[in-house]
């Protein structure tokens, strides 16, 4: 990509042959003190996130558990309210709060909320939907969903230096190194 000094830069991207080379390069970048490094891979590569961003907080399990308990509560209270408070109906002298027969709906609503919570967590975690992202400007980036492995050092990194970072990425065995405009 031709460098245009006028356009602001998002970062410097490098493409690698395979997951192993990507991981080696990522480790080298971490060792050199870079913190704002992102990896883009066609499939989940074990240990990559831990390598590049060791303290990643994951929303998913918390929202799932929270959703589950909220759902269980909501499911039971819905049945309790409708059959005991809002419209008590005596059917053959059965107790109004016949909780054993409320178990199944309580369970289903709990599961439903847990599932919705999980998916909300997924969207929070991934920051999707996001139609535009500067990384799509990187050359050959359409291969990231096929067999391309990319690393990107963002300009926000404290150690970012256009020439030095470029030279470092080139020395790490990448196929190509390019500047990614915003």
């Amino acid at each position, binding site marked *: 990509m031709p460098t245009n000094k006028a356009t602001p830069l998002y970062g410097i991207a490098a493409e690698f*042959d*395979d*997951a*192993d080379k990507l991981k080696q390069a990522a480790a080298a970048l971490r060792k050199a003190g870079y913190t704002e490094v*992102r*990896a*883009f*891979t*066609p*499939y*989940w590569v074990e240990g990559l*996130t831990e390598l*590049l*961003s060791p303290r*990643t907080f*994951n929303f*998913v*399990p918390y929202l*799932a558990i929270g959703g589950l308990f909220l759902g269980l509560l909501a499911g039971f209270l*819905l*049945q309790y309210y*409708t*059959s005991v408070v*809002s419209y008590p109906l005596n*059917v053959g002298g*059965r107790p109004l709060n*016949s909780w054993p*027969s*409320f178990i*199944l*709906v309580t*369970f*289903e*609503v709990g*599961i*439903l909320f847990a*599932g*919705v919570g*999980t*998916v909300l*967590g*997924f969207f929070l*975690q*991934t*920051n*999707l*939907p*996001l*139609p535009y*992202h500067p*990384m*799509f400007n990187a050359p050959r*980036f*359409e*291969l*990231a*969903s*096929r*067999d*391309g492995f990319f690393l990107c050092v963002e300009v926000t990194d404290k150690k970012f230096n256009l020439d030095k970072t470029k030279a470092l990425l080139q020395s790490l065995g990448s196929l190509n190194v390019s500047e990614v405009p915003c």
Partner: protein
Amino acid sequence: MSTLDIVPGKSSPNEPQSLTVRQQPPDNTIGGVSDQITAVSLGKAPLWWWIGLICSVALLGVFAFTLGSIAIRGTGLWNLSIPTIWAIDIANLIFWIGIGHAGTFISAFLLLLRFKWRGTFSRFAEAMTIFALATAGLFPLFHLGRIEYFYYLAPYPNTMWMNPQWRSPLIWDFFAINTYLLISLLFWFIDLIPDIAALRDKAKAPVLKFFYNILAMGWRGDMFHWEGLRKAAFTLAVIATPLVISVHSIVGLDFAVAITPGWHHTIFPPFFVVGAIFSGMAMVILFGVILRSGFKLQNLIPLSHMDNAAKLLLLTGMLVVYGYLIEAFGAWFADDAFEFALVANRSTGPFAPAFWGMILLNALPIQALWFKSVRRSPTALVVIALCVLLGMWLERFVIIPVSLSYPYLESMWNVYTIGVWDFLTIISPFGLFLTLMFIFIRILPIISIAEAKQHLAEEAEHAHQ
């Protein structure tokens, strides 16, 4: 090349690539696998697909006509009577929900157990779940007779001060089926996002590119995306596993809580669950064979995976057979004249062919699966799967109208017969299910691309070590 056999020059995006699967030899690099699966959606449609789609749409027309007539002219078109107030509609409901169960079972339960062969089937099996549920969900609605009031099932504040009856299994059904449909849809979609991104990057036509662009929601394969996806998929699997067991258990409870001879058995909930997975596995195997030969995916749906699926079919089949034995044993053990009479009427009465057909089709053909050569023969698997599907439909028929024909009051015994509309209701739902399946296999990846690539990379790593 350290672990993966990728030639850097080969993955150039500008290189013109043939999109028809036929012309490409199976290429086991991660790029090759990606191209092979995306080509199923983006390449030229094979002739069998067009023929299948046209037949399915025709059958869908019949389905629309049947249900339309039922809605306008009433449920009396079916040969319903007192006491046989449930017949084909409910048999179909249970059959179709059952078909869906295998999809969730494969994608959720096998994910938790970390079975590698899950990825081969999970995508299209999960699609099958959603389409089977969409089909199944129509039957209770039309069974209501007054379909325009179906929303009374939902708890919502209304001026009539009307609330659902929470002690009724039918309301449990409403919650279970809707939750199941929604969770399956979310699970399926979350897993699809990276693969839709692969289609987006590969599609040439602007309309397609736009369509996939919207659905992919900006997926970049970012490491945080993958972390989120993995956690979410795993969590949804944890959620979906008890859910799938609860759904058919609740359907089983629809029967078990009724005091009709033949229904009032404690074995019903688990018996329904294994029966559901059994019939669903048969459908998965059927589609597995069709897709692997239809799109030349022999390298991605290998016979060893078909073998594993067939073993699961055998296991669940044997559990179903155990259920039949326990049903007969229960009638004898309860020492109840009407339970006895039902067993006798089922096996020797006018419905004897359905009863023995159920026993023979479900119990016998699967015995061939004890042999490895049968489990690895696609033709044999198709024959066995078709037997199981027919047998399991017959099972639902035997459980519902046949049991209802013989209630506790002998003067009410009234044998149900299959009329024209009943017959149309049996056949035509396949139109809706197959139309949705045929459309799905051409617009979305039928095998999880990301998972196929990951397994390939892991295999390469093992080989390297």
